[in-house]
């Protein structure tokens, strides 16, 4: 039996689980293993992982807070931008109105000046026209007098220049 047992080392007889001769061995090594695992976990692994998780959580919280802050800043920036835009608009409108008024003023002044010049020119022209007309009328009366005097002379009627002139003048007036 003894030789058989050694020859069959590694062969199971019944259930090896119920071979109580190996129990002390298994229990001893199990306790050693559990103690080692417990110490590694409680001294190194678990505090480290817990710290990493806590770190990550706080990092995420901080980042979220920072993001919230930045968002707030962005909103503020947008508000001030819009404000500046509105200000610039009113400013621009003011400048436009001012420019328009100035231009209008210049325009009015120029118009007035032009009107005055036109009036002066017109007056001058009228004067010239009047002179020309006067000149023309005089020339006509002279020509008429001369022609009348010549006609009278041709008809053989003696008449002095004075009479002819008076008669022509009278005709021209009529």
């Amino acid at each position, binding site marked *: 039996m003894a030789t058989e047992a050694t020859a069959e080392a590694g062969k199971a007889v019944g259930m090896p689980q119920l071979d109580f001769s190996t129990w002390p*061995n298994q*229990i001893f090594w199990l306790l050693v293993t559990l103690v080692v695992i417990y110490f590694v976990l409680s001294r190194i692994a678990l505090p480290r992982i817990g710290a*990493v998780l806590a770190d990550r959580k706080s990092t995420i919280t901080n980042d979220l807070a920072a993001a919230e802050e930045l968002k707030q800043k962005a909103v503020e920036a947008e508000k001030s931008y819009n404000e500046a835009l509105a200000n610039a608009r009113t400013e621009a409108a003011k400048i436009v109105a001012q420019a328009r008024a100035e231009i209008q003023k210049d325009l009015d002044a120029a118009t007035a000046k032009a009107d005055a010049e036109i009036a002066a020119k017109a007056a001058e022209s009228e004067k010239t026209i009047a002179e020309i007309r006067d000149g023309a009328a005089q020339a006509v009366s002279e020509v008429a007098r001369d022609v009348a005097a010549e006609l009278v002379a041709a008809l053989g009627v003696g008449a002095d220049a004075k009479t002819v002139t008076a008669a022509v003048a009278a005709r021209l007036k009529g």
Partner: protein
Amino acid sequence: MATEEHGSGLQIHPMDQFVVKPLFGDGPIEWYTPTNVTLWMGIAVVAMIALLVLSTRRRAIVPSRGQSVAELFYGFIHKMVEDVAGHEGLKFFPYIMTLFMFVFLSNMLGLIPMSFTTTSHIAVTAVLALLVFLTVTLVGLYRKGLGFLSMFWVSSAPLVLRPILAVIELISYFVRPLSHSIRLGGNLMAGHAVIKVFAGFAGAMGIASVVPIAAIAAIYGLETLVAAVQAYVFTILTCVYLRDAVGDAHH
């Protein structure tokens, strides 16, 4: 015995894989002898260190793959302890994590072909279950004193029924380590034995061994599930028992 060995062509020894052997030579197995139990428990420790210590040594805010796995294990068990055993139970988190990592890694390592499954031995699971039982009982008595015994006196039941219920509760309380250990050891042992039986068929059936090999593949998948689920069940039951000891409400 000799005729049994050589008379049959079908030589299946499904239980051989559970034999405890000395690592060096084949002398008697004393309590201190390094055996295959020592070897595979040592591998479990090394695997645990690789999984939870080495992978987290960079302590990265953005974790690597290994660190993610370690954090997954941590978060899973931490949440389980907090949800099931309550906030007070978190004091026992390293203890429960120890049990879970040992059972889970031993189960998984046992699935490696030619390996030795330490958790398939009643000796191992019984010690684990007794540790839980003793911890729960001692912590309960320490924290609640005799109030811990009120757990057995169901005050919500009619007075007549209470003594009967007390007996039932008492029996169920003391049966706990038994069911706790045999559930784990039995599951592991049965699964591995079944795989070995099919493997024996595969060796003897020639071309038809496709069938047992397919069956082994399927059972192997199932055993992977069982390995994880049994570790989970063992741990969550530990948490449930612990709630009796540290929780305010009982039942």
